[in-house]
Protein backbone atom coordinates (compact mmCIF):
# COMPACT_ATOMS: atom_id res chain seq x y z
CA UNK A 1 0.00 0.00 0.00
CA UNK A 2 1.50 3.30 -1.07
CA UNK A 3 1.73 6.05 1.48
CA UNK A 4 1.85 9.53 0.06
CA UNK A 5 4.33 12.11 1.33
CA UNK A 6 1.26 14.18 2.04
CA UNK A 7 -0.19 11.79 4.58
CA UNK A 8 0.47 14.00 7.57
CA UNK A 9 -2.05 14.21 10.34
CA UNK A 10 -2.96 17.64 11.62
CA UNK A 11 -4.79 18.39 14.85
CA UNK A 12 -8.34 19.53 14.16
CA UNK A 13 -7.73 22.41 16.51
CA UNK A 14 -4.97 23.68 14.21
CA UNK A 15 -7.25 23.52 11.18
CA UNK A 16 -9.98 25.33 13.11
CA UNK A 17 -7.57 28.08 14.11
CA UNK A 18 -6.48 28.47 10.51
CA UNK A 19 -10.13 28.63 9.46
CA UNK A 20 -10.59 31.42 12.00
CA UNK A 21 -7.86 33.36 10.23
CA UNK A 22 -4.96 32.86 12.60
CA UNK A 23 -1.77 33.48 10.66
CA UNK A 24 0.35 31.44 13.07
CA UNK A 25 -1.82 28.38 12.43
CA UNK A 26 -1.47 28.97 8.69
CA UNK A 27 2.28 29.02 9.05
CA UNK A 28 2.34 25.73 10.93
CA UNK A 29 0.27 24.09 8.22
CA UNK A 30 2.50 25.59 5.57
CA UNK A 31 5.65 24.29 7.26
CA UNK A 32 4.23 20.78 7.48
CA UNK A 33 3.30 20.62 3.82
CA UNK A 34 5.96 22.81 2.24
CA UNK A 35 8.21 19.97 1.13
CA UNK A 36 5.55 17.51 -0.03
CA UNK A 37 3.95 20.23 -2.17
CA UNK A 38 7.27 21.45 -3.52
CA UNK A 39 8.46 17.92 -4.26
CA UNK A 40 5.27 17.03 -6.08
CA UNK A 41 5.53 20.19 -8.18
CA UNK A 42 9.19 19.54 -8.87
CA UNK A 43 8.48 16.00 -10.06
CA UNK A 44 5.75 17.21 -12.37
CA UNK A 45 7.56 20.24 -13.76
CA UNK A 46 11.24 19.40 -13.33
CA UNK A 47 11.81 23.12 -12.86
CA UNK A 48 12.81 24.56 -9.49
CA UNK A 49 11.42 28.06 -10.07
CA UNK A 50 8.17 26.74 -11.49
CA UNK A 51 7.82 24.39 -8.53
CA UNK A 52 8.36 27.29 -6.14
CA UNK A 53 5.60 29.24 -7.85
CA UNK A 54 3.28 26.24 -7.68
CA UNK A 55 4.03 25.95 -3.96
CA UNK A 56 3.18 29.62 -3.48
CA UNK A 57 0.00 29.56 -5.54
CA UNK A 58 -1.24 26.28 -4.12
CA UNK A 59 -0.70 27.35 -0.51
CA UNK A 60 -2.36 30.68 -1.16
CA UNK A 61 -5.39 28.83 -2.48
CA UNK A 62 -5.38 26.48 0.48
CA UNK A 63 -5.50 29.38 2.88
CA UNK A 64 -8.08 31.29 0.91
CA UNK A 65 -10.34 28.27 0.65
CA UNK A 66 -9.72 26.63 3.99
CA UNK A 67 -13.16 27.78 5.09
CA UNK A 68 -14.62 25.48 2.46
CA UNK A 69 -12.78 22.43 3.76
CA UNK A 70 -15.09 19.86 5.30
CA UNK A 71 -13.70 17.15 7.53
CA UNK A 72 -15.28 14.32 5.54
CA UNK A 73 -11.96 13.83 3.73
CA UNK A 74 -8.45 14.00 5.22
CA UNK A 75 -7.02 17.49 5.18
CA UNK A 76 -3.84 16.30 3.49
CA UNK A 77 -5.81 14.79 0.60
CA UNK A 78 -7.71 18.04 0.13
CA UNK A 79 -4.50 20.02 0.17
CA UNK A 80 -2.75 17.58 -2.16
CA UNK A 81 -5.54 17.91 -4.70
CA UNK A 82 -5.12 21.67 -4.76
CA UNK A 83 -1.35 21.32 -5.18
CA UNK A 84 -1.74 18.76 -7.91
CA UNK A 85 -4.25 20.89 -9.78
CA UNK A 86 -1.88 23.85 -9.63
CA UNK A 87 1.01 21.80 -10.99
CA UNK A 88 -1.09 20.34 -13.79
CA UNK A 89 -2.50 23.74 -14.67
CA UNK A 90 1.02 25.01 -15.07
CA UNK A 91 1.95 22.02 -17.17
CA UNK A 92 -1.06 22.74 -19.33
CA UNK A 93 -0.13 26.40 -19.66
CA UNK A 94 3.31 25.38 -20.77
CA UNK A 95 1.71 22.95 -23.20
CA UNK A 96 3.69 20.10 -21.74
CA UNK A 97 0.62 17.98 -21.25
CA UNK A 98 0.60 17.62 -25.00
CA UNK A 99 4.26 16.67 -25.11
CA UNK A 100 5.22 13.68 -27.12
CA UNK A 101 4.93 11.08 -24.41
CA UNK A 102 5.36 8.24 -26.83
CA UNK A 103 8.27 6.63 -25.08
CA UNK A 104 9.72 3.56 -26.70
CA UNK A 105 8.69 0.42 -24.88
CA UNK A 106 11.42 -2.03 -23.99
CA UNK A 107 10.61 -5.27 -22.21
CA UNK A 108 12.02 -5.47 -18.67
CA UNK A 109 14.66 -8.10 -18.25
CA UNK A 110 16.84 -8.84 -15.28
CA UNK A 111 17.17 -6.85 -12.08
CA UNK A 112 15.85 -3.31 -12.34
CA UNK A 113 18.68 -0.80 -12.37
CA UNK A 114 17.07 1.46 -9.77
CA UNK A 115 18.13 -1.17 -7.26
CA UNK A 116 21.72 -0.09 -7.54
CA UNK A 117 21.28 3.44 -8.88
CA UNK A 118 21.63 6.16 -6.30
CA UNK A 119 19.17 8.96 -5.75
CA UNK A 120 21.04 11.40 -7.95
CA UNK A 121 21.02 9.04 -10.91
CA UNK A 122 17.34 8.33 -10.46
CA UNK A 123 16.61 12.06 -10.17
CA UNK A 124 18.44 12.69 -13.38
CA UNK A 125 16.76 9.87 -15.22
CA UNK A 126 13.35 11.11 -14.08
CA UNK A 127 14.21 14.53 -15.38
CA UNK A 128 14.86 13.11 -18.81
CA UNK A 129 11.38 11.65 -19.13
CA UNK A 130 8.69 13.67 -20.88
CA UNK A 131 6.74 15.74 -18.33
CA UNK A 132 3.56 13.79 -18.81
CA UNK A 133 5.21 10.38 -18.47
CA UNK A 134 7.12 11.51 -15.39
CA UNK A 135 3.95 12.89 -13.82
CA UNK A 136 1.98 9.72 -14.43
CA UNK A 137 4.77 7.61 -12.98
CA UNK A 138 4.92 9.79 -9.88
CA UNK A 139 1.17 9.95 -9.36
CA UNK A 140 0.89 6.19 -9.72
CA UNK A 141 3.92 4.94 -7.85
CA UNK A 142 4.42 7.58 -5.18
CA UNK A 143 1.11 9.32 -4.61
CA UNK A 144 -0.87 6.12 -4.99
CA UNK A 145 -3.44 7.31 -7.51
CA UNK A 146 -5.17 4.61 -9.52
CA UNK A 147 -5.14 4.56 -13.32
CA UNK A 148 -8.78 5.71 -13.55
CA UNK A 149 -8.00 8.61 -11.19
CA UNK A 150 -4.95 9.62 -13.21
CA UNK A 151 -6.89 9.35 -16.43
CA UNK A 152 -9.55 11.66 -15.05
CA UNK A 153 -7.03 14.20 -13.79
CA UNK A 154 -5.29 14.37 -17.12
CA UNK A 155 -8.31 14.05 -19.34
CA UNK A 156 -6.92 10.89 -20.90
CA UNK A 157 -7.95 7.26 -21.01
CA UNK A 158 -7.17 4.59 -18.46
CA UNK A 159 -5.12 2.68 -21.01
CA UNK A 160 -3.12 5.83 -21.65
CA UNK A 161 -2.22 6.01 -17.97
CA UNK A 162 -1.25 2.34 -17.94
CA UNK A 163 0.88 2.64 -21.03
CA UNK A 164 2.66 5.70 -19.63
CA UNK A 165 3.59 3.77 -16.50
CA UNK A 166 4.86 0.82 -18.53
CA UNK A 167 6.75 2.93 -21.02
CA UNK A 168 8.10 5.29 -18.39
CA UNK A 169 9.35 2.37 -16.35
CA UNK A 170 11.04 0.88 -19.38
CA UNK A 171 12.57 4.21 -20.30
CA UNK A 172 13.92 4.68 -16.79
CA UNK A 173 15.50 1.27 -17.03
CA UNK A 174 17.34 2.31 -20.19
CA UNK A 175 18.36 5.67 -18.79
CA UNK A 176 19.73 4.09 -15.64
CA UNK A 177 21.55 1.32 -17.42
CA UNK A 178 23.43 3.74 -19.63
CA UNK A 179 24.90 7.01 -18.46
CA UNK A 180 27.38 9.19 -20.27
CA UNK A 181 30.92 9.14 -18.97
CA UNK A 182 31.52 12.60 -17.50
CA UNK A 183 35.23 12.51 -18.24
CA UNK A 184 34.76 11.62 -21.87
CA UNK A 185 31.31 12.77 -22.93
CA UNK A 186 31.52 10.94 -26.20
CA UNK A 187 33.23 7.95 -24.73
CA UNK A 188 31.89 4.58 -23.70
CA UNK A 189 28.70 4.29 -21.66
CA UNK A 190 28.54 2.42 -18.46
CA UNK A 191 25.95 1.45 -15.87
CA UNK A 192 24.92 4.00 -13.27
CA UNK A 193 25.97 1.73 -10.48
CA UNK A 194 27.43 2.20 -7.07
CA UNK A 195 30.30 4.28 -8.43
CA UNK A 196 27.97 6.91 -9.67
CA UNK A 197 29.56 10.11 -10.86
CA UNK A 198 28.00 13.49 -10.51
CA UNK A 199 26.11 14.61 -13.58
CA UNK A 200 27.73 17.13 -15.81
CA UNK A 201 24.61 19.02 -16.82
CA UNK A 202 24.00 22.24 -14.96
CA UNK A 203 20.31 21.46 -14.80
CA UNK A 204 20.89 18.28 -12.89
CA UNK A 205 23.26 20.03 -10.56
CA UNK A 206 20.79 22.77 -9.87
CA UNK A 207 18.16 20.16 -9.09
CA UNK A 208 20.37 18.09 -6.85
CA UNK A 209 21.39 21.06 -4.76
CA UNK A 210 17.76 21.54 -3.81
CA UNK A 211 17.43 18.12 -2.33
CA UNK A 212 17.61 18.09 1.41
CA UNK A 213 16.86 15.60 4.05
CA UNK A 214 13.31 15.74 5.42
CA UNK A 215 12.59 18.44 7.96
CA UNK A 216 12.96 17.55 11.60
CA UNK A 217 9.67 19.16 12.35
Amino acid sequence: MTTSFFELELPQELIDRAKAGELGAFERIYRRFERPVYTLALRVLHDAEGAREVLHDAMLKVFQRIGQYRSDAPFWAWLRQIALNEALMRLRRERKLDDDADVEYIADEGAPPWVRADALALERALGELPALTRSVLWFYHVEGYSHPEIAEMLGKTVSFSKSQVARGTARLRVLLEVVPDVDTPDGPHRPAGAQHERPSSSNSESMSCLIETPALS
Partner: protein
Amino acid sequence: MSDRNAGAELSLAEALRALPLAAPPRDVWQTLAAELAPQVRRPARRRFAVPAAIAAGVLAIAALLLTQTRERPAPQIATVAPASASSVANGTNAANGTSVRNVAAPDPEAQLTALESRSQQLERWLSETRAAAAPLPGQDLAAAAEIEDLIGLVDVELAAAPRKDAMPLWRYRVNLLEDLTALRYSNYRLAETLTTASNGAPPDRIN
Protein backbone atom coordinates in the same frame (compact mmCIF):
# COMPACT_ATOMS: atom_id res chain seq x y z
CA MET B 1 23.45 -12.71 -6.95
CA SER B 2 22.40 -10.59 -4.05
CA ASP B 3 21.87 -7.50 -6.20
CA ARG B 4 19.47 -9.35 -8.43
CA ASN B 5 17.57 -10.75 -5.49
CA ALA B 6 17.29 -7.34 -3.93
CA GLY B 7 16.32 -5.95 -7.29
CA ALA B 8 13.48 -8.35 -7.62
CA GLU B 9 12.10 -7.14 -4.31
CA LEU B 10 12.65 -3.45 -4.74
CA SER B 11 10.00 -1.99 -7.00
CA LEU B 12 10.26 1.26 -8.86
CA ALA B 13 7.67 2.67 -6.47
CA GLU B 14 9.95 1.98 -3.55
CA ALA B 15 12.93 3.48 -5.32
CA LEU B 16 10.98 6.63 -6.18
CA ARG B 17 9.59 6.93 -2.70
CA ALA B 18 13.08 6.59 -1.28
CA LEU B 19 14.10 9.81 -3.00
CA PRO B 20 14.49 12.58 -0.45
CA LEU B 21 11.95 15.35 -0.25
CA ALA B 22 13.02 18.54 -1.95
CA ALA B 23 13.00 21.95 -0.33
CA PRO B 24 12.34 25.23 -2.14
CA PRO B 25 15.47 27.29 -2.79
CA ARG B 26 13.97 30.38 -1.16
CA ASP B 27 11.55 30.75 1.70
CA VAL B 28 8.10 31.11 0.18
CA TRP B 29 6.41 31.75 3.51
CA GLN B 30 7.61 35.34 3.78
CA THR B 31 5.86 36.25 0.55
CA LEU B 32 2.78 34.28 1.46
CA ALA B 33 2.54 35.85 4.91
CA ALA B 34 2.66 39.32 3.42
CA GLU B 35 -0.14 38.48 1.03
CA LEU B 36 -2.22 36.73 3.66
CA ALA B 37 -1.85 39.37 6.36
CA PRO B 38 -4.50 41.72 4.93
CA GLN B 39 -6.93 38.83 4.61
CA VAL B 40 -6.47 37.22 7.99
CA ARG B 41 -6.41 40.52 9.84
CA ARG B 42 -9.77 41.64 8.58
CA PRO B 43 -11.67 40.34 11.59
CA ALA B 44 -9.33 42.29 13.83
CA ARG B 45 -9.93 45.45 11.85
CA ARG B 46 -13.66 45.00 12.09
CA ARG B 47 -13.32 44.34 15.79
CA PHE B 48 -11.75 47.73 16.31
CA ALA B 49 -13.62 49.57 13.63
CA VAL B 50 -17.01 49.35 15.34
CA PRO B 51 -15.96 50.55 18.80
CA ALA B 52 -13.80 53.19 17.15
CA ALA B 53 -16.75 54.44 15.12
CA ILE B 54 -18.96 54.53 18.20
CA ALA B 55 -16.29 56.31 20.21
CA ALA B 56 -15.79 58.78 17.39
CA GLY B 57 -19.50 59.51 17.28
CA VAL B 58 -19.76 60.07 21.03
CA LEU B 59 -16.72 62.29 21.03
CA ALA B 60 -17.99 64.27 18.09
CA ILE B 61 -21.24 64.99 19.92
CA ALA B 62 -19.34 65.93 23.07
CA ALA B 63 -17.08 68.17 21.06
CA LEU B 64 -20.04 69.82 19.38
CA LEU B 65 -21.69 70.50 22.72
CA LEU B 66 -18.51 71.97 24.14
CA THR B 67 -17.88 74.20 21.16
CA GLN B 68 -21.45 75.45 21.24
CA THR B 69 -21.02 76.51 24.83
CA ARG B 70 -17.86 78.38 23.98
CA GLU B 71 -17.74 80.01 20.54
CA ARG B 72 -14.13 80.85 19.80
CA PRO B 73 -11.97 80.86 16.65
CA ALA B 74 -10.16 77.59 16.29
CA PRO B 75 -6.37 77.55 16.23
CA GLN B 76 -4.66 77.18 12.89
CA ILE B 77 -4.07 73.48 13.30
CA ALA B 78 -7.69 72.89 14.15
CA THR B 79 -8.89 74.28 10.85
CA VAL B 80 -6.47 72.25 8.77
CA ALA B 81 -5.87 68.94 10.42
CA PRO B 82 -9.42 67.84 11.03
CA ALA B 83 -10.31 68.65 7.45
CA SER B 84 -7.55 66.47 6.09
CA ALA B 85 -8.20 63.86 8.74
CA SER B 86 -11.83 63.82 7.82
CA SER B 87 -11.03 63.14 4.21
CA VAL B 88 -8.46 60.64 5.35
CA ALA B 89 -10.95 58.80 7.50
CA ASN B 90 -13.37 58.64 4.62
CA GLY B 91 -10.73 57.16 2.37
CA THR B 92 -10.97 60.18 0.10
CA ASN B 93 -7.99 61.67 -1.60
CA ALA B 94 -8.03 65.33 -0.64
CA ALA B 95 -6.20 66.31 -3.78
CA ASN B 96 -8.41 64.77 -6.43
CA GLY B 97 -11.46 63.55 -4.61
CA THR B 98 -10.99 59.91 -5.53
CA SER B 99 -10.88 57.00 -3.16
CA VAL B 100 -7.51 55.33 -2.94
CA ARG B 101 -9.11 52.07 -1.85
CA ASN B 102 -11.21 51.98 -4.95
CA VAL B 103 -8.71 53.24 -7.45
CA ALA B 104 -9.51 51.54 -10.71
CA ALA B 105 -6.65 52.98 -12.67
CA PRO B 106 -5.35 50.42 -15.10
CA ASP B 107 -1.76 51.49 -14.59
CA PRO B 108 -0.29 49.61 -11.60
CA GLU B 109 2.54 52.09 -11.29
CA ALA B 110 0.10 54.97 -11.01
CA GLN B 111 -1.86 53.06 -8.39
CA LEU B 112 1.30 52.36 -6.49
CA THR B 113 2.32 55.99 -6.59
CA ALA B 114 -1.14 57.02 -5.38
CA LEU B 115 -0.92 54.58 -2.49
CA GLU B 116 2.54 55.81 -1.53
CA SER B 117 1.36 59.39 -1.65
CA ARG B 118 -1.68 58.50 0.42
CA SER B 119 0.49 56.75 2.94
CA GLN B 120 2.75 59.80 3.27
CA GLN B 121 -0.24 62.09 3.65
CA LEU B 122 -1.67 60.00 6.46
CA GLU B 123 1.67 59.68 8.22
CA ARG B 124 2.22 63.40 7.99
CA TRP B 125 -1.12 64.11 9.60
CA LEU B 126 -0.50 61.55 12.33
CA SER B 127 2.90 63.05 13.02
CA GLU B 128 1.62 66.63 13.10
CA THR B 129 -1.23 65.88 15.47
CA ARG B 130 0.51 63.39 17.73
CA ALA B 131 1.57 66.01 20.27
CA ALA B 132 -1.77 67.76 20.29
CA ALA B 133 -3.89 64.63 20.69
CA ALA B 134 -5.30 63.58 24.04
CA PRO B 135 -3.94 60.36 25.54
CA LEU B 136 -5.80 57.41 24.09
CA PRO B 137 -8.08 55.49 26.42
CA GLY B 138 -7.02 51.91 27.24
CA GLN B 139 -8.90 50.03 24.55
CA ASP B 140 -8.02 52.49 21.82
CA LEU B 141 -4.43 52.51 22.98
CA ALA B 142 -4.25 48.74 22.60
CA ALA B 143 -5.83 48.98 19.17
CA ALA B 144 -3.42 51.72 18.12
CA ALA B 145 -0.45 49.72 19.39
CA GLU B 146 -1.58 46.69 17.43
CA ILE B 147 -2.07 48.71 14.28
CA GLU B 148 1.37 50.30 14.67
CA ASP B 149 2.89 46.84 15.10
CA LEU B 150 1.20 45.68 11.93
CA ILE B 151 2.46 48.73 10.06
CA GLY B 152 5.95 47.83 11.24
CA LEU B 153 5.53 44.29 9.92
CA VAL B 154 4.29 45.59 6.59
CA ASP B 155 7.32 47.89 6.40
CA VAL B 156 9.62 44.92 6.91
CA GLU B 157 7.86 43.10 4.08
CA LEU B 158 7.97 46.18 1.89
CA ALA B 159 11.70 46.50 2.39
CA ALA B 160 12.20 42.99 1.04
CA ALA B 161 9.53 42.93 -1.66
CA PRO B 162 10.25 43.82 -5.27
CA ARG B 163 8.23 46.77 -6.50
CA LYS B 164 6.06 44.61 -8.72
CA ASP B 165 4.83 42.72 -5.64
CA ALA B 166 4.43 45.78 -3.46
CA MET B 167 0.87 46.78 -4.39
CA PRO B 168 -1.01 44.64 -1.82
CA LEU B 169 1.44 45.68 0.87
CA TRP B 170 0.99 49.37 0.17
CA ARG B 171 -2.77 48.93 0.07
CA TYR B 172 -2.66 47.18 3.41
CA ARG B 173 -0.40 49.88 4.84
CA VAL B 174 -2.80 52.63 3.78
CA ASN B 175 -5.74 50.72 5.29
CA LEU B 176 -3.87 50.39 8.57
CA LEU B 177 -2.95 54.06 8.58
CA GLU B 178 -6.57 54.96 7.94
CA ASP B 179 -7.59 52.86 10.92
CA LEU B 180 -4.99 54.54 13.06
CA THR B 181 -6.10 57.92 11.82
CA ALA B 182 -9.70 57.17 12.73
CA LEU B 183 -8.63 56.34 16.26
CA ARG B 184 -6.34 59.33 16.66
CA TYR B 185 -8.73 61.71 15.00
CA SER B 186 -11.37 61.22 17.69
CA ASN B 187 -8.90 61.95 20.43
CA TYR B 188 -7.39 64.81 18.54
CA ARG B 189 -10.80 66.45 18.20
CA LEU B 190 -11.46 65.95 21.90
CA ALA B 191 -8.12 67.45 22.88
CA GLU B 192 -8.64 70.35 20.51
CA THR B 193 -12.07 71.07 21.93
CA LEU B 194 -10.92 70.85 25.52
CA THR B 195 -7.98 73.12 24.79
CA THR B 196 -10.25 75.61 23.15
CA ALA B 197 -12.66 75.48 26.04
CA SER B 198 -9.95 75.77 28.69
CA ASN B 199 -8.46 78.90 27.12
CA GLY B 200 -11.33 81.04 28.29
CA ALA B 201 -13.42 78.92 30.53
CA PRO B 202 -13.38 78.98 34.30
CA PRO B 203 -11.60 75.95 35.79
CA ASP B 204 -14.80 74.48 37.12
CA ARG B 205 -16.24 74.32 33.61
CA ILE B 206 -13.29 72.38 32.25
CA ASN B 207 -13.47 69.82 34.93
